């Protein structure tokens, strides 16, 4: 099964909000600790190495895009 990038939550705002709230009041360090635990829990739930690899690729690509945008923005 390939990585699903369709919108899977009936109420996406609730999902986003839940993650945001989980980080409220945390320091940068605590947030980073929290994130890695969450990533491991969700990765195990998916339980499919190919899907995980696709997700990693997507996340990496997004990171490169973000860097390019930043560079373009600072060039203005």
């Amino acid at each position: 099964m390939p990585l699903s990038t369709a919108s899977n939550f009936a109420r996406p705002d609730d999902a986003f909000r839940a993650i945001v709230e989980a980080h409220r009041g945390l320091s940068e360090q605590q947030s980073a600790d929290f994130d890695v635990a969450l990533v491991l829990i969700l990765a195990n739930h998916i339980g499919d190495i190919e899907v995980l690899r696709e997700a990693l690729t997507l996340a990496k690509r997004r990171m490169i895009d973000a860097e390019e945008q930043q560079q373009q923005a600072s060039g203005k």
Partner: protein
Amino acid sequence: MAQAKTQFGYRRHPDQDRPAAVAAEHPVVLVGAGPVGLSLAIDLAQRGQRVVVLDDADRIGEGSRAICFSKRSLEFWDRLGVGERMVGKGVVWSVGKIFHGASQLYQFNLLPEPGHRRPAFINLQQFYAEAYLVDRVEQLPAIDLRWRNKVIALEPRNDMVALTVATPDGPYKLHAAYVIACDGARSALRQMVGAEFSGQVFEDQFLIADVKMAAEFPTERWFWFDPPFHAGRSALLHRQPDDIWRIDLQLSRDADPVVEKQPENVRPRIARMLGHDKFDFEWISLYKFQCRRMDRFVHGRVIFAGDAAHQVSPFGARGANSGLEDAENLSWKLDRVLRGKSPESLLESYHTERSAAADENIRESTRSTDFMAPATRQEARLRQAVLSLAKETEFGKRMVNGGRLSVPSIYDSPLSTADSDAWHGGPRPGASMLDAPMTERSGRAKFLTEAFIEAGARFTLLEFGNGAAARAPKGVPTIRIGGDGGLVDSEGLALTRYDAALGTAYLFRPDGYVAARFRHPTPGALEAALARASGLN
């Protein structure tokens, strides 16, 4: 500390009296009398080959070094006639425990089922293993073991290799059809053929101390992350025979090796761990680990095995055990090539199979070492998350990596015949045979691995039959389970472990790996599988 356990004498050999122009010619010269070289020499000798073994030292027993020998290694040693002695002296274990801080995270059992002749592991100091192998060598006139014979030059020629060997009486020349290099991680022969030995060097330092003490710890492998007695680092405790305990402590990257090795500096560290200082040092060593291998294990007529060909970190017992797997893989192939029964290209399958196994061992041991010594803050954070998740989740426990212990590789090999029938279990082609408890008609118990040895440790057909006529190719003995005169699978374990039904047959290679398997073998299919496994197509 670190006394030589056994000393051997140098003896002048008549080969040394020959003029260089008429150097003695030998089919096999093997360099390095460690566990891998000695085992390989014994296997070759038992197959009828004459082997000259050269070693530059005259003693064994500088420290315990390798201590964990796997089930697969013991089954190999059974074929060489030394398994019983190794198991008799060794301490048997199968349970490992992983601790985080002061509390246990989980435990694992490497052989949770009965019905195997050999345990998951024994711990035995390498010098005992070597001494028992030397004793066995001395029973075999086909092996000519020469101490204080150091190869100082190697000259490959088309039909042989010319060696120059230094001895206390001066140098002499030897010619060998094949040279096998088992001369360890710092292999001189590897340098002589000009081969690269590339890979990853780990900056973390580990202190290994073998201590003698009376202790009540169980015979288990205990591994700690961040223990109270060694904060922020990892520790390992493992039992050996003679009340010796292996302790392995991770040190910082910038620790001074000369200072850290001093017994007076090691003592307080160990005392903190044990809660007392009633122990004596047997051996202390400080290590940085390297994971690397040669690009090619076969350099013309010079073939590399063991640490000379590949090196791993010790977490996982993948050094000596993988070297022994090299030995059992190479010996039957070289024997066939020397007899002209298989083409020289069969040796290429040694490189294919064992270099893939080396990659697997390097991958596993690199992952373990990376988990123990995270390279970046984010890696440390990930590891911390795994360790804390392990307290309450099954998946977290399974991700904790305190060393993944050696299991035989499954070869993706040109010698294997792909399955054409449907299977729901059993060892697939390229996997090593599984043991099972059997009974002879007389009522005597016999393991399948024993039946394989009695059949001659050569190409062997395992047949689940009802007494039908043998369908094995010429020269291939059959182990029959069931039927008239067959072994009795009284517990039904062979049937289950081989996913077998009446008529099922497995073709084993001489090293006990599966070459092919069939639900209903035909003579033609068996002949073809045998030819393929012999490198004849």
